[in-house]
């Protein structure tokens, strides 16, 4: 939480840095800090989401016991009313305090709508399209962190459901490539997106974290679909896009290390391609590496942690699913481990070598 003095110091810093050419609307800055303060800590966010989920469950219990689910039109009306009310609360109240109420109503509204469509035996595709449309409109209207985040999850969940239902692996690869490109764009073009328009700026955070969760879930479902569907669709198609994006990010990182020589760049790229080649048959692994690299590039700790946890899971899953004997798997793992340890010691030696060189004689 920032105090007024801290905010003023930050404003002063920016003015001095840009030689007073920077025009800042200080009242608007203070109002923005006031509004955003409640969202700063993870604890408050968790409390909000906990309240939303628990109250939604209680409301679902009410609907079941009151047998309200028997009327599809009643449920649909209730659902739309609750979603509208949630958006109204978020747009009019402009208060972080009513977030819990808004989130609860939002989730319950979608549940009611889903139940009404299930009663009517609505076509599955229509079900998903309605959800996608409503979620996109809701995110655009609300523009708050948690409702927009939930909206992104609803959109991605509906897209995944459509693809799983159609058993179309080609569409899954397209979706994965879309997520990969979107995540990279969101992290690399952060300044462009945030400064482009106030709406983009407000939606930036929820869309960013929503995309990461959606991507990880899609990678999981991709693996399962390839396992269960007897299809000749090659699994590596999306991996190629992931590897290319990783290479693009690495080229950006060269500027951090001030690597300018083309020969050095080519060597690093070739080494990385060699290291990433085995992951082509495991898009989940290269996908997680893309998340980790993007999040570290932009110093986004939450996404980085999610990426690392997902990476550990998918690497384990990959080796578990390999149709080799345990002996072959063990030798592969040990060889890979030894390679990385050798690389670590080379890096450690170079670090110590640099430290020795930099010390005065």
């Amino acid at each position, binding site marked *: *939480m*920032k*105090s*007024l*003095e801290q905010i003023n*110091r*930050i*404003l002063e*810093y*920016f003015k001095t840095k840009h030689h007073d050419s*920077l025009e*800042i*609307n200080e009242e608007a*800055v203070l109002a923005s*800090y006031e509004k955003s*303060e409640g969202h700063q800590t993870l*604890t*408050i966010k968790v*409390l*909000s989401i*906990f*309240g939303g989920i*628990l*109250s939604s469950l*209680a*409301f679902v*219990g*009410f609907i079941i016991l009151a047998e309200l689910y028997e009327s599809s039109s009643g449920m649909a009306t209730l659902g739309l009313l609750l979603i509208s009310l949630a958006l109204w609360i978020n747009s009019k109240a402009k208060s*972080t*305090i009513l977030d*819990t109420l808004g989130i*609860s109503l939002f989730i319950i509204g979608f549940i009611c709508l889903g139940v009404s469509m299930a009663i009517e035996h609505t076509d599955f595709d229509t079900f998903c399209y309605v959800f996608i449309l409503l979620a996109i409109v809701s995110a655009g209207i609300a523009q708050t962190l948690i409702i927009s985040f939930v909206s992104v999850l609803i959109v991605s969940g509906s897209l995944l459901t459509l693809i799983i239902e159609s058993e179309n692996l080609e569409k899954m690869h397209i979706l994965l490539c879309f997520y990969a490109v979107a995540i990279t764009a969101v992290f690399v073009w952060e*300044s462009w997106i945030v*400064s482009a328009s106030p709406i983009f*700026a407000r939606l*930036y955070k929820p869309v960013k974290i929503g995309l990461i969760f959606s991507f990880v879930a899609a990678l999981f479902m991709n693996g399962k679909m390839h396992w269960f569907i007897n299809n000749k669709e090659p699994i590596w198609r999306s991996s190629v896009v992931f590897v290319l994006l990783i290479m693009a990010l690495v080229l950006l*990182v060269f500027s*951090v290390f*001030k690597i300018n020589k083309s020969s050095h760049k080519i060597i690093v790229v070739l080494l990385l391609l060699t290291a990433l080649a085995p992951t082509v048959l495991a898009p989940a692994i290269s996908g997680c590496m893309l998340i980790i690299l993007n999040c*570290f*590039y*932009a*110093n986004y700790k939450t996404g980085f942690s999610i990426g690392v946890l997902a990476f*550990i899971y998918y690497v384990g899953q990959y*080796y578990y699913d390999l149709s080799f004997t*345990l*002996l072959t*798997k*063990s*030798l592969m*793992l*040990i060889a*890979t*481990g030894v390679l*990385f*340890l050798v*690389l*670590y010691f080379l*890096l*450690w030696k170079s670090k110590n070598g640099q430290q020795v060189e930099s010390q005065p004689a």
Partner: protein
Amino acid sequence: MDKILREDIHIISQNSNLSKEQMEQALREHVYPNETDWLKMIRLFVLSLGIGFSVAGIIFFFAYNWDDLSRFTKIGLTQALVIVSTGIVLIPKIDLLIRRIVLTAASILVGVLFAVYGQIYQTGANAYDFFLAWTISITLWVLVADFAALWLLYVFLINLTFVLYSEQVARDWNEDFILFVLFLFNASAHIAAIFNNHRKNSVVSPAWFTNILALAAFFFATNSYLSAIDDSKEEFNLALVFAPLFYGLAVWYSFKRKTIFYLASVAISLIVGISATVLIKNESSSSIFLFLCFFIVAAVSLAIIFLIRLQKEWANEKS
């Protein structure tokens, strides 16, 4: 000058004529990692992959050759791993953090050793015997290393040993007592960690470690309460005395250290407890669920209002 965060840059950008190039520069200077950060991350990532893959490979190797190995080879190999990893820990030239990580790996390998021993000799021991032996064996290492991850493993093992003992040996213990002991243990571990942080010249536990211990204590306290409100039980649940004491301490500590984590945890625990009480003490009807829905929304909203106000007050006091 206070550290400039991403949110500060975003807010300034949205309320000024800061260009996207200027914003990009500000992000690079204050938010994005520099060369040193990248090198540190790459080294840690590569080391973690190296250790992770090697350990996994060793485990797979054992799994493959298991039936063909003689019992002496099986135990010998596992013991050799434990000895080698412990040997590495004794080399002073190696970075302290790495030695602590290796000792944590060695502690896990002790469990593997006991599992191998139990499997070979078919000792017929209960699972709790295994976890008890594992816990006792690594106690000295845990005390010497003073490493949060190893302490967490140790606390987890103690919890697991107790639960298995209650399921396999002390079957006459009632659920209330088991939950109370688990709550008491985790609460004590948490309080001990906090005390240790305030001692001079001691290694300060990271926040994630004390928070996990606190969450475990709150979890068992809440479960103790839920178990206690069951009408059929005649025994008095000691958790009904000690849990409020712990909650009181947590609230006091929250105000002392100006952190909202404990207050939020108490709020969640109380809301769950009250909701469960209403459900259990009344017949399940639609109106009860509707009441609970509104109650939860109101309670969480009030908790958030209170916590935000506290955060603002504390932020202003600090400056």
